[in-house]
Every structure is written in C-alpha cells, then in structure tokens.
C-alpha cells in the first residue's frame, strides 16, 4: 500500500550554546548531524539572532542550557509553534555521541560546536517533542466527506 505522506525526519533538534562572541548552534535529526555553526552577535542583538537561526534551521525542538539564550529561544519557539526545552536531558558523553554520529568530529571541531552537537544529539535521543503537522492542502479530498 503506498504511503499517503512521506516519512518526516523528526525530531529535528536545534541546540544553542553561548560562546565568547555570540553563540554556537547544531542541528541533529535521528539520521545525522545536519549542520553546525557559530553566530557572532552582541548582547543587544542576541534575541533577533536566535530567532533568525530558529527560523532558518526549521527545527521541531529547540534546546539550550544557557540562561541568556533561554528567553529568546522560548519566545521565538512560541511564535513558531514549536517546543523549547531545557528540561533535564542526561549528559551524553562525547565518545557515545561520536560513535552514533561519526560526522560530529568533522562538522563540529571546536569545543563550543562540539558541545552544541552533543546537546542536539542528546535531545534527539531523549527529549519528547510533538510531531509537526503537515500544511493543509487545498485540494486534498476530505476523509470524512459525506
């Protein structure tokens, strides 16, 4: 029987970690570490920069442990209707994260990126997030049509 809708790569977790001159982020899904990078910004532009990254990376779950990033992340997540959490994720050892996601060493070579990558992987493994709904299609025949 053909699938009506293709399977989605969820959860897609975005982890944010504060660094010296801004913050680092990493995006992971159950298959791979999708991306990792650093954003340079001042305190004044931290909120918009976080919102911009969330909008760009399109996660289904945002996770951070930093107090300064928590507020902007929660506000942006609420606006986009996704989950933001900092709830007790277990500390995933780097060795295990690298074993599960071998690309972590290459995509996140600095300590800050690596920390964000491990947090994103921990969120994929342990956090609970509601799945994203498909956008309604105008011409999809209704299942409950009379």
């Amino acid at each position, binding site marked *: 029987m053909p699938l009506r809708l293709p399977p989605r790569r969820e959860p897609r977790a975005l982890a944010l970690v504060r660094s010296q001159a801004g913050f680092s982020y990493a995006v992971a899904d159950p298959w791979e570490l999708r991306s990792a*990078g*650093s954003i*340079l910004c001042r305190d004044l532009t931290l909120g918009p920069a976080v919102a911009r990254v969330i909008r760009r990376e399109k996660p289904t779950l945002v996770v951070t442990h930093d107090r300064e990033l928590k507020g902007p992340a929660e506000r942006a997540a609420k606006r986009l209707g996704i989950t933001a959490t900092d709830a007790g994720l277990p500390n995933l050892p780097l060795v295990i994260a690298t074993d599960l996601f071998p690309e972590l*060493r*290459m*995509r996140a*070579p600095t300590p*800050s*990126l690596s920390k964000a990558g491990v947090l994103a992987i921990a969120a994929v493994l342990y956090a609970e997030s509601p799945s994203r709904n498909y956008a309604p299609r105008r011409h999809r025949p209704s299942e409950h049509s009379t």
Partner: protein
Amino acid sequence: MRLVATVPLNTPPELLALAEDVLVAAARARFVSLGSLMAYGGPDGLTLEIVDAWCRAGLLHRGRVQPDPLRAEEVEYVALTTAGARALHAATGRIVHGTTAARLKRSSQKRMHDVLVGEVALAALALAKEGRIELVGVETDDRRLAHAVHIAEPGAEPERIVLQPDALVVTKGPMGHEALLVEVDRSTTAPKRMQLRYKGYLAWQKERGPLNDFGIRALRVLTLVPNDARLERLHAAALEANGGQRSGFLIFGLLDDVTVCTAERLLELVARPLGGEPGQRVRLISPVLRSEAA
C-alpha cells in the same frame, strides 16, 4: 525465489576487516573507479574476485562512465548501494550511507565528475590509512556542503551566490584543524561563471564564513583542473574576482596530482596559490609530525 547471502557481507570471517575498511572507504568516497579501489585495498588482500562477489550480492553497484563523450574510452566504477550500507551496518555496526538509485541513474558526465571527486576522497583516506595524515573526516555529498552568500555592493543589485563545493577534507595538522573545500572542474563551466563562484568564496571568507560554518579558520578552496591551460585560465578569472590581489584562500591544482596512486603528492608542494609567482607551489595537507606518528 530470491537468493539472499546469508554470510554477513558475503565474505569469509577472515576477510571481514578488509571488507569493512574497503566498503567504508567506498561509502565515504561514494563513486570510486575500480582501479583506484584495487590500488586502495589491493595491498591488504582485495582481489577482483572479492569485488565481483560483493557486486553479485548487491553490496556494490558496478557501472561504466565515459570521461570524454567524443572518445570510446570508458572507466569502470563501483559505488556502495543502500542495501550494501545496511548490510555493512548489520555486520559491523558502522553507520554509512549508500548511494541511492537516483544518483546511480544520473548522466555519464555527472557520474564521471563524482568519480573524480571520489578519487580525491580515496587519496586522503589512503594517506590516513598509512598514518601519513590525521584525517578528521571526508564529506563528498555536495548537498550537505552547499551554502549561499549574499553580496551587496553600492550601486549594484544584491546578489545571492550559491556555493556548492564537491568535497570537504578535514585534517588535523601540527597547528590545529585544517580543511580543504574541493571543487572538481572538468572544463565544462565557463570561466565567467567560475569567476562569480570565486567572488562568492572570497566574500564568504571576508564574512568569516569558514569559521562560522565549519568551525575551522585554516580552510582553503582547492580547484582541481584537468590541465595547465585550464589552470591558467581559472587562475586569471579568480585573480580578477579578487581585484588583482593575491590570496592563499584559493589554490589550484591538477587532477592527476590527487589520485590514490599518487596520494603522497598531497603532502608535496603541488598547488598554486592565487596571485603567486607562476612557479610558486604550496602544500595541500600538512603531514603528521614524526613524533606524533611514532
């Protein structure tokens, strides 16, 4: 009834380590010419019979590509299938991605390009196997490396330039992490279009792109070309894009210098930096220090 290989990887247990090494290398390089694969695994005991057995079991896809459409010469290549990736994971626990059917059905020219990219990756893997370099990772899926840069200059419309390098090779040298973004050129793209691409790379570098996107400061863009004439043409185009200024960020090399058989040339002075003297050459990858290797 469909026959299924019951032995993991269709390989005797004593050859399992070889199978893991070779198939993981094939997965990371994605498309590998048969000759290069034999050069990579031959010293460890890889034979054509083993490759044939893997192809029959569906672990590897074997195909042919035509490097030059005007010549009858063909190159035989292999690629790890998705079934092969699953079998490898089941037998060894290594997570790798196979080449999808859609990629295998692409045109001969595109597959030939992928074979050349695989050649670069396999050369780096061969050097790492010998312990000559400390390889952190190789990525040959251009879709995972793609990014874009916006250029806004006064008096001109803002431009969005898509940068889609063919491969990324990350190593750890004596001074820290180093990376090479590889662009394989087969003389099929106009120098003007390549110039726009170089303009994008230079703008990306000015915006601290290497550090922001890959977390590596010592990143260079290597363009590999088939011959010296093309190298000169692209060098001139890149120099014009950079306003005549020299830069060590863009380097140029020949495809023949980066093969599995000539892998040690990666450690020699073979690449021409942008704006350097005609005879000036730089090293592509820093070797592991002897004390570290010991």
